[in-house]
């Protein structure tokens, strides 16, 4: 596996750039954050090992997504049946639809940041508690004195409002385009 240092550096850059999109892609096929973490890491290792097989100038995101797909399938094979959430046909369908979006995360991130700025401090705190500290709604409820149900509803409301905001930003961006 001969690979020049320059090529390796370029590959590193591509891999680092692809991480967000790859993680989002995997999470869509494997809707469990911890499982998605594991598969992302397994995918990264496979990508690195197979780096010499990537043809410069071709679509890195598509290549990486393909390998991630195989890693998801391998992971599903290893999972107990009771842990599998989606059937094979749905995973295949989602994979086909999600692959097309795997590299569109940069714009999305910019829009997300703008939308997060519009959240109230209280909502941002909730997000921080969930995502930065991996707290479950029940644990957040204990710390905030609210009921777990109320936290779950609030989290869902925040996500939906962010999606709505992103959709609006996306629409207005398209209108601004020449």
């Amino acid at each position: 596996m001969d690979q020049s240092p320059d090529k390796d550096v370029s590959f590193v850059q591509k891999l680092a750039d692809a991480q967000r999109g790859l993680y989002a892609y995997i999470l869509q096929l494997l809707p469990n954050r911890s499982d998605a973490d594991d598969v992302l890491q397994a995918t990264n290792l496979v990508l690195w090992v197979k780096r010499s097989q990537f043809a410069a100038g071709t679509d890195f995101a598509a290549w990486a997504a393909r390998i991630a797909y195989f890693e998801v399938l391998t992971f599903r094979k290893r999972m107990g049946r009771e842990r599998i959430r989606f059937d094979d046909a749905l995973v295949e369908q989602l994979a086909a639809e999600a692959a097309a979006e795997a590299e569109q995360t940069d714009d999305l991130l910019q829009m997300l940041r703008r939308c997060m700025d519009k959240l109230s401090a209280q909502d941002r705190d909730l997000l921080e508690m969930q995502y930065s500290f991996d707290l479950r709604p029940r644990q957040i409820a204990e710390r905030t004195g609210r009921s777990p149900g109320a936290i779950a509803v609030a989290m869902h409301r925040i996500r939906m409002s962010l999606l709505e905001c992103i959709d609006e930003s996306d629409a207005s961006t398209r209108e601004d385009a020449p």
Partner: protein
Amino acid sequence: MSQSRLLAKLLENEITDAECKQLNRLLGDDPALRRLYRKYMTLDAMLRWEIAPPLMKVSKEERTAVDSPSPAFLPDTDAPIPDSASRPIPSSYKLPLAHSTLGGWAFSYAVATVFVCLLILGFWAYKLPSDRGSLITTNENSRGLTTPGESSPARPALVFVGRVTGIAGAKWSDAPDYLPPIGVNVRLGRKYKLKSGLLEITYDSGAKVILEGPCDYTAESTAGGYLSHGKLVAKVKKNHELRMMNDESKTRSSDIHHSSFITPHLFAVRTPTAVVTDLGTEFGVEVDGLGNTTSHVFRGSVEVQAFAGGYRNKIVLRAAQSLRVEKGKGSDEAMLVAGVVEPPKFTRRLFGPPKQLDLLDIVAGGDGRGKRRERGIDATTGMEDPLFVPMNRGGHRDYRPVSWHRFIDGVFIPDGAAGLVKLDSAGNTFDGFPETTGRTFGSIWPRATEPKPHDSASDKSHRLWVYAMGRGEQFMPEERGLLGLHSNTGITFDLAAIRRTFPKFVPGRFQAVAGVADASHLTDIADGMVDFWVFVDGRLALKRMNVRPEDAPFGVDVELKSNDRFLTLVVTDGGNTAGSDWAVFGDPVLHVEPGDANETKR
């Protein structure tokens, strides 16, 4: 409940089985809901990535450090680890309720990027500041494990922490000042200095350590030791893990920030430059002659604390990740270098001599001692096939080296029309193959004993021929499984590499039961006819022509000499095209002739 709330429940892992089935159906039928689902999951991924990147499993202490304003920066190969990450840890745990979040996010993103590059790719090194002595505090619970590199304090005599439970080829150091231990009990403070071979210690806590010579290891506590050089693999039993986790959680509830290098009760290996603490796992540690430490996690996770003049900096490594801690130029400086830095080869088990090596396990990625199945190889590229790929393959006839597997030399598509066919990387060739289609179908596939369920009613079910052929018990009297090789395919095993890996055991015979599976129950035009070939170093050792499904399976028994380098299995299409050429080698094994087999596990 609204459909979108189902998504929330799925994400929070609180969805019931019935709701999950409902969601499956809804998502399959409703493109709009599927679109919402993809957006919802992508949003979750982005939020998680933005707020706490999944690869950056920073400790809670480090997260609190992010709370303070930090300069937004991009990764820079010479950038020192930001000071905020090494500030004294606050005495109580608090949540950083986000305020001016951009700095924090930018920090997180930058660190995440650095971390990805460090942990995954191993390109950058970060020099740790050396003046951190003031951060060290003592902890009496560390039970003897102090800081990396320090000598162990005096121990009370005759306190035993475990037993020696296995030895393989161990030779003690002949250093004049070293007195090898007597007996199997492991005394606290006992030094194990091996010149070569393996030695397994089982601690009373249940943790096991396999020392690999040359190495120098001291059992300096009931839950760990000091590795001054050499290699070891540590494995913590489940009940031990659970007990430790319970202890740990109790400790955390009273004081979440431990101020010493060693987390009480967790198994830890100390080296001259680091402390590697088990978090429920199997991991390897290697210390080279300069004191540099390489840690690699096989399962679970470990926490690696680099040592630099008392400075604590820790990273949590997870399965398949490696991290190297190097000594810096100064006496009390260390460098962290992470990534797939070609982790050292560790011995993870003490086995008795293998009597045979399973070729199905080897093709599936193993070393022949396991029972791996259902992961194959593309005969046209040599790449791994994680799934059986039901398609025609061909296009070239070059010999394809299989670089990712030390026991498989290469694969190829045999075709006599192309002239001499290369059989192995040593350049052995064969000119007696007939003209073939130059194509194959599917993967070289090590199938499990029981075929995987598939849609047998489908008119395409025959494409998954390794499963559609049925159980195939006539080919596997020992019920190991089948090696499916649709013509035209060749695969070469590297016997020399096998001998290098198992130096005391020499492959003496290749045995299997071969034949052609019957496709007539699936198609009216089944016309399987296959030629079987076995070569050793390019010499033809077995040839069986025009084998049809109606022919009885035949035994393959090829003698191998101690200096044979390659074993090659080939199937060609018998001259009637490759249709339905479902060739299999059942129960394929290399029988190993033991050499010096007197060193086994106790």
